[in-house]
């Protein structure tokens, strides 16, 4: 049996109930070959449950899902040959070393012992884990586990990769490394379905994003489409001289055509921007007017704002509101523009 469809994932009306609680309530997804698709939602939205249904790890209660045209319910064994799954929690064996884990999975996938060892070595090297090859996983850091887990999912060279919250709980540096790894995968032509709680992560990695909330898809589109549907970026300025706030406001209004929001006691001027590129125009305008600033940064809408706009309620879980390292903000320092 071979696969022919252009769609890597095609799901319609997916439903999963646990008792009388509906965790996934009729989700449709279409993911094209070669794209990175992000499923964005707060904790408990149903991301993992959706992914598990698509990966044959949970029975599909209602609806239909196809992976490269293969029906998930009818042919789970075939689907498992097409998908590499990296779960939210590392799915490697704690008591085995990194090499033993990869060789085990390689052997299960039908490789000879020699081929499995070679593939394991190659992957450990690609993921910067070769020094840790002989260490038991229980002694690994969170970031190392995630990378090993991803490496394990790539052993079979699957055409479709599922990544469930690949960076949740990682520190900003490790998170950046994980992003680089995912970008390399994508450059190699894999189709990736990734879930995340962070708008900036989806923004950085995904071609298209579906926003889900309480088991329902509330929006879908590119990151740009989502953000513009929600509102604009904001330029946050802090003036060196608080008394100049009114003058600055006039200058800004001349440049953007909109009145900025002022916090005079702090010397703050917050400028709504239709387009983040307008920030430079505002800064140049202020420089010409002789107004000096201490800090300036452009902030995109947060996931919380996206949610509020799309669903009329916040994300409920405090930790999911913004990414831990705030890397959405493109910080522009005054010295650089001046």
């Amino acid at each position, binding site marked *: *049996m*071979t*696969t*022919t469809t252009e769609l*890597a994932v095609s799901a319609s009306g997916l439903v999963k109930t646990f008792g009388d609680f509906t965790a996934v309530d009729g989700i449709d997804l279409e993911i094209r*070959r070669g794209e990175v698709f992000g499923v964005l939602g707060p904790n408990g939205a149903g991301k993992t449950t959706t992914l598990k249904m698509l*990966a*044959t*790890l*949970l*029975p599909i209660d209602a609806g239909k899902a196809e992976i*490269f045209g*293969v029906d998930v319910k009818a*042919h*789970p*064994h*075939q689907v*498992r*040959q*097409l*998908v590499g*799954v990296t*779960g939210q*929690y*590392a*799915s*490697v*064996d*704690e*008591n*085995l070393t990194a090499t*033993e884990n990869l060789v*085990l*999975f390689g*052997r*299960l*996938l*039908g490789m000879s012992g020699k081929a499995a060892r070679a593939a394991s070595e*190659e*992957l450990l090297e*690609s993921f910067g884990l070769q020094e840790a090859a002989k260490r038991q996983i229980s002694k690994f850091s969170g970031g190392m586990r995630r990378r090993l887990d991803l490496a*394990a999912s*790539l052993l*079979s*060279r699957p*055409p*479709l990769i599922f990544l469930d919250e690949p960076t949740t709980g990682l520190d900003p540096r490790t998170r950046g490394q994980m992003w680089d*790894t995912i970008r*390399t*995968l994508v*450059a*190699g*032509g*894999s189709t990736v379905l990734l879930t995340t709680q962070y708008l900036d992560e989806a923004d950085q990695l995904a071609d298209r994003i579906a926003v889900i909330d309480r088991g329902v898809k509330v929006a879908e589109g590119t990151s740009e489409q989502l953000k513009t549907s929600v509102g604009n970026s904001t330029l946050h300025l802090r003036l060196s001289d608080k008394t100049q706030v009114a003058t600055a406001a006039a200058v800004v209004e001349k440049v953007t055509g909109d009145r900025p929001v002022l916090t005079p006691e702090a010397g703050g001027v917050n400028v709504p921007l239709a387009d983040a590129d307008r920030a430079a125009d505002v800064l140049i305008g202020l420089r010409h007017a002789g107004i000096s600033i201490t800090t300036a940064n452009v902030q995109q809408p947060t996931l919380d704002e996206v949610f509020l706009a799309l669903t009329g309620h916040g994300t409920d879980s405090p930790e999911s509101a913004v990414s831990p390292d705030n890397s959405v903000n493109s910080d522009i320092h005054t010295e650089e523009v001046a």
Partner: protein
Amino acid sequence: MAALISTYAVADRPLKARPGVGETISQTLTMARRAYIKMMRNPEQFFDVTIQPLLFTAMFAYIFGGAISGDVKSYLPTIITGILAQTALTASMARGTQLREDMDKGVFDRFKALPIARIAPLAGPAVADLLRYGIAATLTIVVGLLMGYRPGGGVGGVLAGWALTIFAGWSLSWIFTWLGTVLKTAGGVQGLGMMIMFPLTFLSPAFVPKETMPDWLQHFVDVNPVTLVINATRDLMNAGDVTMSVVWALVGCAAVVAIFAPLSVWSYSKKL
């Protein structure tokens, strides 16, 4: 990294409908190897198959020997074969709790997501456990010999009894494997396992002759699979005879596997 990724296969690859028999065996052996490595790293897993046979054999022989058979030495043919069956049963019980603990770990999600035979993650550890039953059986027999047990069945009879003990342990482990796939916690598996193990061990001729029990109990003793194994082991080791008891023991063990292995696989894959 780039080299690695450039060799990705596209989605247009031939897909297998189901794992073949050869693949299933190879995957089971791979899972057995995993269980073996873990066993070697966690020597606690050998406590029940080393300390228990040593302790119970000596203890039971000296405590019950005089009362039941007049003296310790004439009790040995009864107690050694009884302990063999008992240790096989307790050792196989650990399969259920270990499977349950293992299944709660993340790695089982990967096993489930891999295109492998559903029976491999269940059967693999059961194969590795043959080592545990082998250790338990060997120690029990050695302790017996040291205490003066002189099996009438000779070397051949003893080897046959040893092999039957291991086979019985492996067969009975499927009951506990099934419990492991059905119950939610390792504690539950342990508790229910005990409730199954005690009547099976003690309502058998393992330690006392069946005739000393009340009539109504004897009916249960007769159909207890552990009784079948004990009778067969006694015939093999103490007399060197391949009797109908041996046939019945083999049939009984095979029946346990035939019922509980498919039930286990069914219950394991149903949860997917």
